[in-house]
């Protein structure tokens, strides 16, 4: 019964919301300029759908699971952590999609980066920081290779990176088994302490805030009196950092304009002097590096590298980017939209545990969400490009 109430309330909320935004504004003195309401301006932004979706998801769980602890500090950090991890790769995937290409090798790169950290550190006795630098160097190489292959051959990136998906995953498995005789490499946790780099990927921040909140009895405590939520996980910090920096790049820099141009019309962009090839290669490096950030955070958190880590993550990243308003044809989209897309998926995948709904339904939701987003994006694209 409470489900019906939830939908009714959401409907009510949205209808009042849209009315309150729909205020006419004077932006220009030109009398021929049709008055454009703020709502309409907002509708032209690619991230609108994802923002609306995220708000809906929060309202939904607020009503359905508001009293279950999902929105306690601990519960929130939990789903934010999941969202943030996905968000890191979704943002990079979105940038690449705006630039007109796909990277299906993100998931395999996560697994590959994981063992690039673990094997040198555990089996070859490298210091952890050196293994991390090594993993990032490999990411740059893989990204560069993907990019140069796509740019030089002119083949669809879908196919090139699909090949890389298999190559990287296979190499990860084969090399790991060859060197270690198994498919998992544990034992990293002891190496994190006193490492000059690892803390960037493995430190909870704002611990003082949580200690203080705990001492004020504002958040849940363990039986020993320490707060249940100890700090903001590194994934969330990375996620916010990347969302801000990529949005800034897209909106405010020359390189950002080149990304839109390369994805929108690569011949046209080339003709006016945009270095389309270089832009695309740099974006492929971006997705591989983002996959490595994801891998480093997870490997250091779990203390072990698994060869199968990141499987299917590339599709989730692309799904989040699409929900965030990226067109599959390139040239349109936003990084912040992909961030909202990741928040939607992360929140639902965790939130579903707090409801009576069986968790099997999550994938159904994911697929349906993506379908709706694609249809919505297509409509927006037509609106944006139709002649007046």
């Amino acid at each position, binding site marked *: 019964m409470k489900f019906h109430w939830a939908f009714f309330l959401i409907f009510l909320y949205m209808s009042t919301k849209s009315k309150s935004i729909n205020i006419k504004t004077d932006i220009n003195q030109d009398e021929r300029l049709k008055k454009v309401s703020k709502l309409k301006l907002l509708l032209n932004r690619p991230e609108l759908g994802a923002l609306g979706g995220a708000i809906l998801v929060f309202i939904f769980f607020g009503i359905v699971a508001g009293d279950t602890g999902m929105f306690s500090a601990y519960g929130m950090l939990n789903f934010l952590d999941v969202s943030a991890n996905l968000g890191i790769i979704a943002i990079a995937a979105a940038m690449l999609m705006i630039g007109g290409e796909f990277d299906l090798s993100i998931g395999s790169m996560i697994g590959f980066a994981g063992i690039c950290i673990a094997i040198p550190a555990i089996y070859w006795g490298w210091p952890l920081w050196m293994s991390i630098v090594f993993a990032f160097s490999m990411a740059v190489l893989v990204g560069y290779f993907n990019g140069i292959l796509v740019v030089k051959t002119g083949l669809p990136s879908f196919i090139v990176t699909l090949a890389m998906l298999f190559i990287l995953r296979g190499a990860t498995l084969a090399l790991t088994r060859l060197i270690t005789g198994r498919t998992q490499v544990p034992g990293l946790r002891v190496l994190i302490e006193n490492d000059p780099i690892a803390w960037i990927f493995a430190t909870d921040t704002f611990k003082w805030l949580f200690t203080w909140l705990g001492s004020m009895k504002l958040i849940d405590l363990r039986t020993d009196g320490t707060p249940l939520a100890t700090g903001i996980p590194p994934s969330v910090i990375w996620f916010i950092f990347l969302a801000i920096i990529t949005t800034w790049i897209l909106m405010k820099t020359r390189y950002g304009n080149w990304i839109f141009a390369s994805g*929108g019309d690569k011949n046209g962009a080339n003709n006016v*002097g945009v270095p389309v090839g270089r832009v695309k290669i740099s974006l492929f490096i971006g997705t591989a590096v983002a996959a490595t950030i994801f891998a480093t955070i997870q490997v250091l958190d779990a203390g072990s590298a698994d060869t199968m880590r990141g499987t299917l993550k590339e599709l989730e990243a692309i799904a989040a980017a699409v929900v965030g308003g990226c067109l599959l044809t390139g040239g*349109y989209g936003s990084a912040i939209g992909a961030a909202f897309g990741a928040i939607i998926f992360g929140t639902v995948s965790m939130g579903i545990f707090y409801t009576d709904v069986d968790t099997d339904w999550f994938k159904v939701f994911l697929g349906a969400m993506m379908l709706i987003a694609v249809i919505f994006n297509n409509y927006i694209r037509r609106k944006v490009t139709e002649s007046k």
Partner: protein
Amino acid sequence: MSDYLVQFNNISKFFGKVIALKDVTMKLRKGEIMCLLGDNGAGKSTLIKTLAGVHKPDEGEIIVEDKKIIFDSPKDALDIGIATVYQDLALVSLMSVTRNFFMGREPMKGPPFFKTFDIEKANKIAAERMGQIGIDVRDPSQAVGTMSGGERQCLAISRAIYFGAKVLILDEPTSALGVHQASVVLKYIVKAASQGLAVILITHNVHHAYPVGNSFTVLNRGKSLGTYEKKDITREKLLSMMAGGEELNKLEVELEEMNRLSSQ
């Protein structure tokens, strides 16, 4: 010092055994509009690409402001002030007017290493430039996709002029446009020429070319049939000179002959 801004003398271009262009000569003064007419396959595209630096001419010379020039790339041509607006216009319809206008040549602001795209300045210039040609850009951040075909053509031309074009090569600027849109574009081309640019207007539509052109070069099967000042040639003569003109006349005679024979 000749009074020509740009001279293309005896340009020839061969692709293997195929003679794509043979001894084509064109001379343009400042403020002059030369129409390059020719039917499909006459060699118009090859000629444009040779003038724009995409192809190197196998024979002949290009002289810009009395200096002999050899282009190694389209960029060389652009640097010297020969700008080409191709049919695809090099516009991205999903991007805003401003972002298109400055695509690849964005104005920057801020300290070194932290330079950002100066959107405010770019918006201002784009709106101003479009305003000058009578196109009221309702909002320079609107997508180019919302503009009409004529407006897009004007945007592409306006961009080329803003970035320092002295010689403007326009590839079929009116071919995809309706009558009204085409006249808007043609008007703009005349205006651009009156500001001192030399314009090469490539078209197969004599009705578009004749009112605006100062001189006409007709190209047929890779060869120039000559360049004529406007006072020396009529619209009808131009029409019949373009490929098909002579042949259609012959066809007409033959058909009459056949009719006469069959009616006997």
